[in-house]
């Protein structure tokens, strides 16, 4: 594995220098290095392939080999392309409506409940909002208690219906409650679910239909491997979500899932989670993510 892709590319370009102009043939070896770096970072197999092809076109166009430091130029091309794919303009959360309804969705253990708390705290402290958290996970042991603790820690009320096993009804009633109590934001936490679990996927569609959220956030663990594309695609096909939350970036994962998801659903990454504490969130920086994926 390459701790420094730049150096690695520099040395393979040294070999190429002797061969004069850059060609399809002699660039193949360096592209292999790029592809491998992406796969080591958990970028999806097909997406890594496509990406490498795009980079090849750009490298041939830029005549990389004639540069003083071809390796550096190549890395710049790769980084810029990565950052551009993941970035575009930063998109905020839609809070225009009263109340603004935000729905969380994702696999088990991805960080939905924790992020619900983080977002409520962020909106309360940074945007002077008055959020209501909603305990829509009726399955996981102590899921409601967990959200209550989180709500208490950030000082936001939590709407619960202990004993009610119908998250659609709970969510609907919570919106009503938010209106009467004057909350301008409602954040609905939901149970973790697998994309192949038909009943659970139907349930989250039903929650969406019932409360018509302005913002659906797909919460994904940044350590996720090749499966990120399948899951993101399935959740997006069902929910047409508005943005992605990438959690646990305080670890040392390269986080190639970020690129895979962005490519496959073309939805912006809105926030990242950077710790277990409830203030550990950050807006997404595509350029930092590009460096991270490349291990730089």
């Amino acid at each position, binding site marked *: 594995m390459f701790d420094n892709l730049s150096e690695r590319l520099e040395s393979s370009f040294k070999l190429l220098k002797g061969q004069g102009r850059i060609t399809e043939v002699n660039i193949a070896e360096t592209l292999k290095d790029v592809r491998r770096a992406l*796969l080591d970072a958990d970028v*999806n197999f097909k997406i890594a392939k496509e990406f490498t092809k795009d980079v090849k076109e750009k490298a041939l166009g830029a005549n990389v080999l004639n540069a003083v430091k071809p390796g550096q130029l190549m890395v710049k091309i790769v980084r810029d392309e990565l950052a551009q794919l993941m970035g575009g303009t930063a998109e905020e959360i839609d809070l225009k409506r009263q109340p603004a309804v935000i729905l969380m969705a994702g696999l088990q253990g991805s960080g939905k409940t924790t992020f619900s708390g983080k977002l409520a705290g962020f909106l309360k402290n940074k945007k002077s909002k008055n959020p209501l958290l909603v305990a829509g996970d009726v399955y996981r042991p102590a899921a409601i208690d967990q959200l209550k603790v989180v709500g208490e820690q950030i000082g936001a009320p939590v709407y619960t219906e202990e004993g009610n096993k119908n998250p659609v009804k709970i969510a609907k009633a919570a919106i009503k409650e938010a209106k009467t109590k004057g909350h301008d934001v409602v954040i609905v936490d939901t149970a973790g679910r697998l994309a192949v679990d038909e009943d659970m996927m139907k349930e989250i569609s039903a929650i969406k239909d019932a409360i018509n959220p302005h913002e659906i956030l797909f919460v994904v663990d940044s350590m996720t*491997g090749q499966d990120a594309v399948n*899951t993101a695609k399935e959740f997006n096909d069902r929910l047409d979500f508005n943005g992605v939350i990438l959690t*646990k970036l305080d670890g040392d994962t*390269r986080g*190639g899932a970020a690129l895979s998801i962005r490519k496959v659903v073309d939805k912006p990454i809105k926030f990242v989670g950077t710790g277990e504490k409830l203030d550990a969130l950050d807006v997404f920086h595509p350029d930092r993510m590009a460096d991270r994926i490349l291990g730089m």
Partner: protein
Amino acid sequence: VGKSKVDDDVLDQLEEVLITSDVGVNTTLKIIERIEKRVSKDKYTSTTELNQILREEITGLLTETEHKDQNTWELPEGKKPYVIMIVGVNGVGKTTTIGKLAHKYKENGKKVIIGAADTFRAAAIDQLEIWSQRVDVPLIKQKMGSDPASVAYDTVASAQKQDTDVVIIDTAGRLHNKVNLMNELSKIKRVMQKVIPDAPHEILLILDGSTGQNAFEQAKQFTKATEITAMAITKLDGTAKGGVVIGVSDQLQVPVKYIGIGEKVEDLQIFNKTEFVDSLFS
């Protein structure tokens, strides 16, 4: 009709299957090399033979478990209570796996006790308490925020007094790059050894089946802090294949012992190498 060597198309396909199962580039290359070696040696390989060779080579990378006969929930002699410590990064399924394990041991006539040494995460104790009620085994706990090592100590000490067969200790999820949290884990282990010198007898690293190449670093760092003895892969009821454990098991020589295939109490199985490798190709 047989072929004398594996052609590039077959290898490309194989590469795609392995990489998309999270096996990783290094391990994939290793597998392909081994196959190429065998196939050029034993000439005229048919597709069926090739498939057989492939499965053999991958299975060969998965480390054997200590007990060859894994189909029983019997415990090793002279280790009573048998102490199991559960470790892993955040949200992988540690607490849930404890519920399932406690259930299996109990079903097999063992007296089980569990300890709530995750005193940090919101409602972690309540979650384990619900599991303890669900499977009807006693729970040792203290208040939120108390010292996890002290909870572990209490649990082991109380198990010893009560003629318990199996002790299972939950720990808080922690990312392996956080030095203080990893040191805390070493401490929990040391403190249990004050009661039972050779405890914990099993340190089970839980890996989320959807995790990619970061699993290598997780396994390395948890081994450094606690010398893990076995692994469990969870959430294999989804579409992720969990292929990264092949390389991890090979590199660290730690066996995979269990798989998690759902959120219910019965959704734990003993790891079966052959079935696992087959699932990569299905």
